């Protein structure tokens, strides 16, 4: 693993991020990662709140467009997150909580599939099945845990 981490860290973008003193290098990637978090987790929170019974008159079908924002933020963070990892692979690669975060993201994506299917369907707006409400609650817990584990990466040596 060590040789793989070292190879990642020696790639030109990794070297640029970790060595440039510019405010447009590492700090910019970090900022974009936060914006991606706000876009993806923020839209996931909005979708889940509606499915949990907040803003009941709001048509469920109007939530469809929010999935595009969710995936937009998700891909932004896939790119920026990979850059942040590559730039510090020999450190982050040995932090268990980083892998916990990745697994939680995978769970979050799996849970989003049936939620997406329900929102895309022709279901009657005012009735949200218990199964979907449960998944929405689980989704909120997963994404808050992703943020928590992500923040912990910065503090675990």
């Amino acid at each position, binding site marked *: 693993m060590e040789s793989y981490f070292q190879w990642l860290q020696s790639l030109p973008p990794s070297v640029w991020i970790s060595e440039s003193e510019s*405010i447009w290098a590492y*700090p910019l990637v*970090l*900022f974009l990662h*936060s*914006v991606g*978090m*706000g*876009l993806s*987790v*923020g*839209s*996931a*929170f*909005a979708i889940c*709140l*509606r499915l949990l019974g*907040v*803003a*009941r*008159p*709001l*048509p469920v*079908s*109007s*939530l469809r*467009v*929010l999935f595009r*924002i969710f995936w937009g933020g998700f891909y932004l963070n896939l790119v920026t997150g990979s850059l942040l990892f590559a730039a510090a692979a020999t450190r982050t690669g040995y932090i268990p909580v980083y892998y916990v975060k990745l697994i939680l993201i995978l769970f979050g994506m799996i849970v989003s599939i049936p939620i997406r299917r329900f929102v895309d369907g022709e279901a009657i707006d005012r009735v949200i099945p218990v199964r979907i409400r449960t998944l929405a609650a689980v989704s909120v817990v997963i*994404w*808050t845990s992703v*943020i*928590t584990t*992500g*923040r*912990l990466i*910065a*503090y675990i040596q």
Partner: protein
Amino acid sequence: MNVNLVHLHLVLNHVPTVGTIVALGLLLLAFAKKSDHVERASLAVFVAIALVSLPTYMTGYSAEQAIKDRPGVSAALIETHQSAALLALIFMEVTGVVAWLGLWQARRPSGRTRWNAPVVVILAAVSLGLMASAANIGGEITHPEIMAAGDAPMGTLAPDVFKTSYIARFQFTRPWAWPMLEAVHFIGLSLLFGIVLVGNLRILGLMRNARFVDIHRLLPWGVWGFVINSVTGMLFFIGQAFQYIDNPAFHLKVVFMLLAGANVLYLTLFDEVWALGPGDTAPLSAKAVAVSQIFLWIGVIYFGRMLPYLGDAF
């Protein structure tokens, strides 16, 4: 820069007391005249005072730094002023949130709940008393002449947990406290940003099959995000004030946050967005406000993230 912030403290510190007297007067006038318009104006003023109270409290640290080494300035009196101010600030913020809830409820078909108006009056009166007490102690720091000869300095009702040193020590002695506050701060960010984004995207023409009235019902969750981040943000500030008060990224973050916070009032106060039905297109002015709101919140995130890079916060 430091001198300017001290001036700012001396200007802003009149707002919570004088502003609350004005807003409370407006609210009582609204009750007497049974005027909804005046009542909403008064509630909006309470929200504005709650926002301005945040930099009022924070610039106090610059004032402290400027005068603490002067002869005749009592460190104990500064500490008493600071914990009295924190207690007053908390009541002022709660008043602002309850006033905002009143504005939000007024937009619901079912109208405002009956408890809202009396609770705002009581909270405002308590905040006013606490602010006046904090202001009085603050005045004694540099104007000992207002104390009668032989008088002991004013005390405060604030318990020890409101002392800056207590809060800073709590964070310092518990290594998990700071990372946990960070995690909660980022969760609050996502909640606030996501809900505000949804409201503004409807104005910009996405989710067009929804009425704005219905989107509006999500807004309190955005405000809870703001509350979560005000509390965690203030705890960072109190714990490590001196890495923020001269930090240019922090100054810009607070300015952007105040503008963005005031901007959110637009979503509850203005009829042009309120009247949007299914399929309706918002007027250009509303779209301009929506774009500015998204820009301001992204700016808050940017300068928050830049605290260690434009300044020297960790």
